[in-house]
């Protein structure tokens, strides 16, 4: 997991790879402005964000993941800002240091007991949370899942997703652009298939997209874990096996950190693209100083805001998107100077 690398069944990817152009994501319109047109990488569906102050007197609770996880923290900041814009009271409940279903179920039960107007949740398990969430919904409290999702979403009002496949596609396209037609080799550092559907989707997006480029040889995936020393050792071995390796795509934060350290130890210079790295201070620093070439990212504050909007619309009886999907962004060092861009743990500091 990165550290909270989600257990997710990705659905609703109508946007698909063909629509991914490598930049931008879903946008949320506020007030009575025109409906949001979701840009490449995200869903093409549209919705109207509720008007400011329209949820006055309502209470929204976000049952997130482990406290301190900056990915969920960034989502929470977006949700908080949007809830405040709507005039609602917002509360964040984290589940302790572990990414596990049991503490999240206890936290969800506690949140339900406070009788909120609606609950956002990032389920730690696509199956184990189904019954507890169904129980909350049957008590009259609408639930929206955000980022992670349930295997069976029939009880939730909406599930707001990110397009993990697009992250892999962007990485593959980036290598192709940098290779400029030269014959090169690239490797994938990820976690074993089946452990995390989000990661699987990212892997598949990368591998499938590479097939479009006959000049790029995909040398295979090496499986990593959360132990940095293992990941450095694994990346070192990959670099020893492929000393002229052109690029590494790491789908997990720890895999990326391992690749960075291994490359420095070996004085090797593969292009390292970090998947989903925007909330990690170390990776943002590495991008700034050129240690990694690029990273894929998602506008997680937008994700949180979209989730609050679906919840507010559900309560008001307005149309709700069942599976809005936010597209991926490719960030390079040059793009870091974008005005107002907040990355790293600051994105989760609100």
């Amino acid at each position: 997991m990165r550290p909270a690398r989600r257990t997710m069944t990705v659905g609703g990817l109508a946007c698909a790879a063909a629509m991914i152009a490598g930049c931008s994501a879903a946008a949320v319109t506020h007030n009575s402005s025109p409906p949001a047109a979701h840009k490449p990488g995200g869903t093409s569906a549209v919705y109207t964000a509720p008007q400011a102050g329209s949820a006055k007197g309502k209470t929204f609770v976000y049952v997130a993941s482990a406290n301190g996880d900056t990915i969920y923290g960034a989502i929470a900041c977006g949700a908080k800002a949007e809830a405040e814009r709507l005039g609602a009271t917002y509360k964040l409940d984290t589940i302790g240091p572990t990414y596990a279903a049991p503490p999240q179920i206890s936290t969800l039960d506690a949140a339900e007991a406070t009788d909120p107007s609606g609950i956002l949740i990032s389920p730690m398990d696509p199956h184990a949370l189904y019954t507890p969430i169904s129980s909350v919904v049957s008590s009259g409290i609408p639930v929206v899942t955000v980022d992670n999702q349930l295997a069976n979403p029939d009880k939730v009002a909406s599930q707001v997703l990110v397009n993990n496949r697009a992250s892999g596609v962007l990485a593959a396209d980036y290598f192709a652009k940098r290779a400029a037609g030269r014959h090169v080799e690239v490797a994938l550092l990820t976690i074993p298939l089946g452990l995390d559907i989000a990661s699987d989707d990212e892997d598949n997006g990368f591998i499938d997209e590479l097939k479009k480029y006959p000049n790029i040889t995909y040398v295979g995936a090496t499986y990593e874990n959360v132990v940095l020393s293992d990941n450095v050792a694994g990346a070192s071995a990959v670099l020893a096996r492929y000393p002229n390796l052109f690029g590494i795509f790491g789908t997990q934060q720890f895999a990326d950190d391992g690749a960075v350290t291994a490359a420095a130890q070996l004085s090797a210079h593969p292009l390292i693209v970090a998947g989903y790295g925007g909330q990690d201070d170390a990776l943002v620093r590495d991008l700034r100083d050129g240690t990694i070439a690029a990273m894929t990212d998602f506008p997680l504050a937008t994700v949180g805001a979209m989730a609050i909007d679906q919840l507010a619309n559900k309560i008001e009886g307005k149309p709700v998107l069942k599976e809005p999907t936010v597209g991926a962004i490719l960030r390079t060092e040059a793009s870091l100077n974008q005005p107002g861009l907040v990355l790293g743990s600051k994105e989760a500091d609100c």
Partner: protein
Amino acid sequence: MTQADILPRPEDAEDLRDEHPGLLRRVARLPELGVLGGLAAIVALFMAWQPDHFATIENLRNLLANSSILTVLAMATTFVIIAGQIDLSIGGIIAFAEMATALTFRSLGGTAGGAGALVAGLGVALGSGLGWGGLNGVLVTRLKLPPFVATLATLGIAQGAAYVLNDGSDLATVPISLNTHVGLDNLAGVPVLVWLAAAITLLATYILRRTRYGRHTYAIGSDAVAAERAGIEVRRHVVTIYAIGGMAYGLAAYLNLALYSTTAVAGHASDALNAITAVALGGASLFGGIGTTLGSLIGVFIPGVLQNGLVIASVQPFYAEMGTGVALVLALYADRLRRSRDASR
């Protein structure tokens, strides 16, 4: 001089049974011989399988560098195991020491921190490790909690405290100079981390083989009651073993920061198991009284070489975990046979 001072060392006890062994017989009796043979076989396999990529200077240098921090852990754990103890709190202590040190760095300039930050950070890392280790020792010797439970408890407390320190978020506030000069630099073509690990190994070897402290460690692990009767301050000695061990884990935390430039609070769950596995693979008895630093050093490299060689051969590294597990079973079975043989004498 106490009675304990005249206790024979384990290797000397062997010698007493045969006062004039030949060189070959002495080599054949080396407890590390089996595990050394196993490591040599694995190395030979990969040299034959992947001669162009495995048997290179660069790969050897990487193997050494990537094993250096585990070597520090294994040296401390060797003392713990020989003394008949166990320490499961290693990962928690490292996570806490990493976070406390990173916070220190942050308050002293962050990535731009200078020599003062490096020294202060080292002090915090060693001090926090010493504190947690000392607490382990007190829990085991004063409160008489079983080491397994006591250190399991401190694992959770230290891990939780590490999360509390920065609300669960990792920190990347390590001075660049630490990463550059300690984590990634070479001295005479060998990574600085390897030199440091070698120094720790030599120091541990000297203490264990040549000092009264080392002999007392063996004596306590062999029979704590007998050691007490022989005049050894068993409780105090055990406290120092845990405390010094904790300090070594603090040092490992500092070296982790030097190498990776970031904390990894969630990434230390397997540290204790890795260290204990290395020590057990190296021939130490989990029942205490038996073990060597050389054996533990070899034990460190078995999983490391397996992982490195298999990835080079494009085989997923979790096969290395299987291989390490099989080697561990063999090592523990050999220990059981050894103890059965000794008991029947």
